[in-house]
């Protein structure tokens, strides 16, 4: 099937069988992205940063702001290191993106609930539970993504 066809030089269209083979080759190439192994440190590090974001709320006002800023900077740095390490920047909306959104929303809702309980009832200890839940969600997501990569690599 390999040709050096140029857009200015019309090339004959493939037969249905050739088109089927080409589609299969494209799908296989596409799925090779799913088999890239995720570094083992990535999701535990993410879980740590997520937990620090919640636990920082237990500190006095100015310290909380400092911890949030440091954690957010850490989050950005972590993602940058990950992208450089694996050599791929994901496209939002793709399968992994869809996989990431529900846990992200779960962490957000957990932290929002902890914030409400803190502000409305002064129950600051919920931040500890939120930190544990947020970290657990990240670790579970990591385990899920790593398992998917292993399964795809075997397929």
């Amino acid at each position: 099937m390999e040709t050096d066809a140029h857009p200015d030089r019309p090339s004959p269209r493939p037969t249905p069988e050739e088109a089927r083979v080409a589609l299969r080759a494209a799908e296989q190439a596409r799925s090779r992205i799913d088999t890239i192994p995720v570094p083992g440190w990535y999701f535990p590090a993410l879980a740590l940063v997520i937990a620090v974001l919640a636990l920082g709320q237990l500190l006095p006002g100015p310290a909380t702001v400092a911890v949030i800023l440091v954690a957010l900077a850490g989050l950005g740095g972590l993602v940058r290191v990950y992208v450089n390490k694996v050599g791929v920047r994901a496209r939002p909306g793709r399968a992994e993106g869809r996989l990431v959104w529900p846990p992200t929303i779960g962490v957000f809702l957990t932290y929002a609930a902890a914030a409400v309980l803190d502000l409305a009832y002064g129950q600051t200890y919920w931040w500890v539970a939120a930190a544990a839940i947020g970290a657990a969600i990240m670790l579970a997501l990591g385990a899920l993504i790593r398992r998917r990569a292993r399964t795809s690599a075997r397929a």
Partner: protein
Amino acid sequence: MSDNPIDGFNATIHASNRLRICALLDAVAEAEFSVVQERLEVSASVLSKHVSVLIDTGYVQQRKAVRDTRQRVWLQLTSAGRAAYRDHVAALRAIVGEAP
């Protein structure tokens, strides 16, 4: 553009390795040259040759960045390249007889 999906057939993209390069790049925002090479199991020279064709036609663009003191090349489909690849896949599906 025509309503007939088969008109989206693209001779430049259809070459086997170029189709695979476009398919892989369509799945990501951008990927490092060495990752594309490793995932597609092609030599650097073969990949470089096909990427050059795709760059010349405006379907792929490359970005150079330094990591660990080494220069890395990142590849990504342009919006024209992504559209052309998807039209091409739709054309192939139409040829096979699948609904796009």
